[in-house]
C-alpha cells in the first residue's frame, strides 16, 4: 500500500462513521495484518468565556498540506514496519461531535502501530498548514491553535 505520489487527503465536511467502518472492512482481505490502530479527531463543544463552540470551519493551504501529508507518510513508512497507512482530514464546516481527522495504520505486529500512529498524529498537528475557525453558537468566532 506504500505509494510514491501525493494524494488528496482532504474531504469536504465531516468524516462519517460509515466511511471509517467501510475502511476497516476493506482491510480484512489483507491477511498479513495483525494490528490496526486508528486515531479520530472529533470537534469538541468547548466553552470559552461563556460561549460554546458549535462547529469548526477548516481551511488549508491545500497544495502544501498535501505535500506535507505525503512527507509524513513517506517518513512513517521509512521508520516503521507498516502494511498500510491512511489519512483523511476535513475541509469546510464540521459540527461538534463530528469527526475531522481519521488516521489509520496497520502492521503485522502491535508495538509498531502504537508508535507509528502517535508519530503521525503529532506530525500532522505540527507540520500541516490547516486552519480552524471555531464558530460559537452566537455566530462569533475565534481561531483555533494546536497545543
Amino acid at each position, binding site marked *: 500500500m506504500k505509494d510514491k505520489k501525493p494524494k488528496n487527503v482532504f474531504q469536504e465536511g465531516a468524516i462519517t462513521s460509515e466511511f471509517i467502518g467501510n475502511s476497516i472492512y476493506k482491510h480484512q482481505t489483507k491477511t498479513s495484518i495483525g494490528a490496526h490502530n486508528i486515531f479520530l479527531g472529533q470537534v469538541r463543544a468547548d466553552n470559552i468565556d461563556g460561549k460554546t463552540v458549535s462547529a469548526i470551519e477548516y481551511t488549508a*493551504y491545500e497544495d502544501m498540506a498535501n505535500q506535507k501529508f505525503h512527507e509524513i507518510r513517506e517518513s512513517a513508512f521509512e521508520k516503521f514496519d507498516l502494511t498500510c497507512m491512511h489519512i483523511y482530514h476535513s475541509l469546510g464546516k464540521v459540527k461538534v461531535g463530528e469527526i475531522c481527522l481519521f488516521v489509520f495504520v496497520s502492521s503485522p505486529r502491535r508495538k509498531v502501530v502504537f508508535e507509528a500512529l502517535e508519530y503521525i498524529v503529532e506530525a500532522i498537528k505540527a507540520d500541516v498548514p490547516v486552519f480552524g475557525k471555531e464558530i460559537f453558537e452566537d455566530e462569533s468566532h475565534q481561531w483555533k491553535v494546536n497545543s
Partner: protein
Amino acid sequence: MLITIKYFGQIAEVTQKEEEQLEVSEYLISGVINTLNTKYSDLKNKDFQIAQNQELVDLETELTGAEIALLPPFAGG
C-alpha cells in the same frame, strides 16, 4: 519581479483577501513582509509563518520569486 502572495485564516481576515499579486524589487523575504506590514497595519500584531514555494522560510531567506504564503498557527486535527 511579480510574486503571488496567499493569505490564510486570521491573516486573510486582516488583508481582506485570500491572494494577491505584488510587484516587488526586494531580494529577501523580509523586504516583502515589510511592504505588507506597511500595506496592512494590523499584520504586525498577528502570529504567522512564511512559506515560499510551499516550504517554510525565514526573513533572511532569499526571495526566489514565485508563491509566498502567510500561514497563521496550524490547527489541523
